[in-house]
């Protein structure tokens, strides 16, 4: 149904795609995978008409097409659902679905027609929890995705591109998305699925196209691959020891301790962090994982309970107490996008007036490659940005470092490097806390796992517990 041949694209003289072929059949879920910077997003944006390719052709149903504008791609039946949703929050579902092409009757928007058509679409997607008149703002991210898909269907989309659709979803919402994808393919719609999460890819995809460094490595039946084989294709090497070895001896002294810590989101938190130990924090979305990290750090402080060192009431008190936080949302809370690597890495030291280490040593320590302190951080890959964020904290040598989803949006190679660094920091006597919604990562890295549920500690599990055991604690009611 869709055939892209020899697609090439350069930005500012840097070649990001070259000679990429992609074929997709009707009713197929076709996954596109690759490390960050492999060219997935660019390829999808070319398909959606956001970028024009420098070379290559696109055919839909055997007819050659060129898209000068996203609207042309839309007319040709291509819909793209971005990671960041593009709905208008203050409008109703129906208004969003028909945005820009509202049905008109006697010069007025025909709301009744719009709403009944939207209602039909939602019903066909099996969605009954909300209706066409609900405000988009009031819907969860998962439901908003349903609206995006309804919009795509109303445009008679035949190819739906989903770019990291599960990234903003809570774990239990992922299942809903699966159902939705299957409904689409049952109608003969082709779904192009871009994701970092390998498990989803094996759950959903019929075929998988692997991109690496802007070129296609292969397209293969999903059933012919397993995780290890796919990772090998993506990074071009075997990552059999995914995680660094755990601490050898028993953990050291308690560096941070909370008893009965609470605020509006957390209740009765008891927690000890020891030198040399990586403590994993698991929990469903909304269980208070991020809130716990921010409370320990002082950004959203505990209002009750005892803590050693003294309960920080502000970020600066947290930093002064030797605590650092690598935030979950790197773009919004972690980096200064327009500043150089150097200014990002020295920010905490400058803000607190701490003596600074040499920037070169710092970047070497986090294995930033290439280590260019004068480069603007926004030009770096997600993995390299995260390494700079890490350098920012290492410049003040904290005793406790809290990591909130440290490898989200980070490619496989940089992920391993960050894992190694975390283990290294622990070995050097730091207390490390790590939040991750990727259970294999959490289990692979942690010396013990604290499970949160509804703002409380639901229990603690030893190293190497099963995913099932973690989920049981996290989801028990």
């Amino acid at each position, binding site marked *: 149904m869709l055939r892209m041949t020899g697609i090439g*694209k350069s*930005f*500012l003289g*840097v070649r*990001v795609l070259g000679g990429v072929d992609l074929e997709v059949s009707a009713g197929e879920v076709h996954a596109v995978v690759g490390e960050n*910077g492999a*060219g997935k*997003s*660019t390829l999808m944006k070319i398909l959606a008409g956001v*970028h024009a390719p420098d070379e290559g052709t696109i055919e839909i149903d055997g007819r050659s097409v060129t898209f000068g504008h996203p609207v042309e791609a839309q007319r040709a039946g291509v819909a793209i659902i971005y990671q960041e949703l593009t709905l208008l929050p203050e409008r109703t579902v129906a208004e969003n679905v028909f945005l820009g092409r509202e049905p008109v009757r006697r010069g007025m928007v025909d709301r009744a027609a719009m709403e009944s058509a939207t209602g039909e679409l939602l019903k066909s997607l099996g969605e009954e929890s909300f209706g066409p008149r609900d405000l988009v703002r009031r819907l969860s991210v998962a439901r908003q995705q349903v609206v995006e898909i309804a919009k795509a269907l109303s445009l008679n989309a035949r190819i739906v591109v989903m770019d990291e659709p599960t990234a903003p979803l809570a774990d239990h919402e992922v299942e809903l998305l699966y159902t939705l994808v299957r409904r689409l393919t049952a109608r003969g719609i082709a779904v192009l699925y871009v994701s970092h999460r390998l498990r989803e890819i094996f759950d959903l995809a019929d075929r998988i196209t692997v991109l690496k460094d802007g070129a296609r490595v292969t397209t293969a039946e999903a059933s012919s691959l397993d995780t290890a084989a796919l990772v090998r294709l993506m990074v071009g090497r075997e990552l059999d020891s995914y995680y660094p070895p755990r601490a050898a001896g028993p953990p050291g002294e308690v560096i941070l301790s909370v008893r009965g810590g609470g605020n509006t989101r957390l209740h009765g938190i008891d927690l000890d962090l020891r030198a040399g130990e990586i403590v994993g924090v698991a929990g469903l979305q909304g269980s208070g994982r991020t809130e716990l990290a921010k409370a320990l750090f002082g*950004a959203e402080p505990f209002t009750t309970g005892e803590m050693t060192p003294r309960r920080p009431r502000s*970020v*600066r008190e947290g*930093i002064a107490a030797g605590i650092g*936080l690598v*935030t979950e949302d790197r773009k*919004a*809370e*972690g*980096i*200064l*996008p*327009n*500043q150089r690597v150097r*200014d990002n890495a*020295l*920010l*905490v030291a*400058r*803000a*607190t*007036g701490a003596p600074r280490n040499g920037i070169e040593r710092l970047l070497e320590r986090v294995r930033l490659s290439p280590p260019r302190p004068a480069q603007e951080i*926004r*030009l770096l890959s997600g993995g390299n940005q995260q390494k700079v964020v890490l350098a*920012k904290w290492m410049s003040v040598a904290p005793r406790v470092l809290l990591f909130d989803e440290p490898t989200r949006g980070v490619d496989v190679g940089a992920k391993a490097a960050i894992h190694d660094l975390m283990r290294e920091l622990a070995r050097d006597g730091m207390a490390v806390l790590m939040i991750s919604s990727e259970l294999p990562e959490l289990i692979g890295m942690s010396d013990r796992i604290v499970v949160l549920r509804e703002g409380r500690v639901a229990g603690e599990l030893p190293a190497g517990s099963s995913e099932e055991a973690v989920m049981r604690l996290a989801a028990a009611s």
Partner: protein
Amino acid sequence: MRRALPIFVVLAGLLVAIAIVNPYFLEPPAFLAFVKRAAPLVILAAGQYFVIVSGEFDLSVGSLVTAEVVIAARLIDGSAEATWPVLALMIAFGLIVGLVNGIVTTLLRVPSFITTLGMLLILSGAVFLWTGGSPRGALSEQFRQLGRGSLGPVPWSVLILAAVAAAAVCAMRAGFGHTLVAAGDNDRAAALSGVRVARVRTVAFMISGLSAAVAAILLGGFAGVSAQVGKGLEFQAITAVVLGGVALGGGRGSVAAAMAGAFTLEALFTLLNLYGISGALEPAVQGVIIIAAVALGAVRFPRARAAAAS
């Protein structure tokens, strides 16, 4: 510095263009006279830069300049002894106005556009009320020397400008400057890295108020006392900063480029004047420049970002 380069090229081009029409322009006396004339705007642009790079605006500086000059004339009333205390008072008044702007913006969370627009109206209304439209009193000769006189061949205002420029560049190189830019680039990330965002922004407003006080001292001497002395200066200063390639919204651009932007604006006005184009056109030229500069910045930015994202 890479990003700041274009403005220096434009400035050099304009200076050459002026020199072609008026060959004496690049000789020391004429050139120093040009710098002297530009000094108040350059100082205001430097002050405005601190506020803009931190992600805010200061629209109050024009009427602050007027208020400062009018108050000084009334308090000094031609008396030599009163000169120095009143100068100190002017500095303090500028700092206090900046402090109020800063506190209202950061602690009460009123957008700075509104805060400083309100301050503009309050100050100009107060001046009008106090003077009834025509300022009373006079500046002393000592006071006017700062704007008019010189130390040997070099005007005092050029020396003051040099000191202000050096101080501004040093402040931006120090930890304060880096945290200020950080707050302008991404205030959440900055706050979570220990930057006291409200405090650095308030200090930026105080620097802007201080720069208005210094500009008022020079302008009072140079141009004399009137209720129009600071009129429109806030927009000239913002235009100059934007012309220097400093991003509105904060986080990008250098103070040297902002000051070069002010020189460029002044050079452009000089050139228009040389060609006999009416001074009445100045606001229109300024309007075109500010829109064009922001549009250019906006066009460049997404392209670079698209390349980064791929």
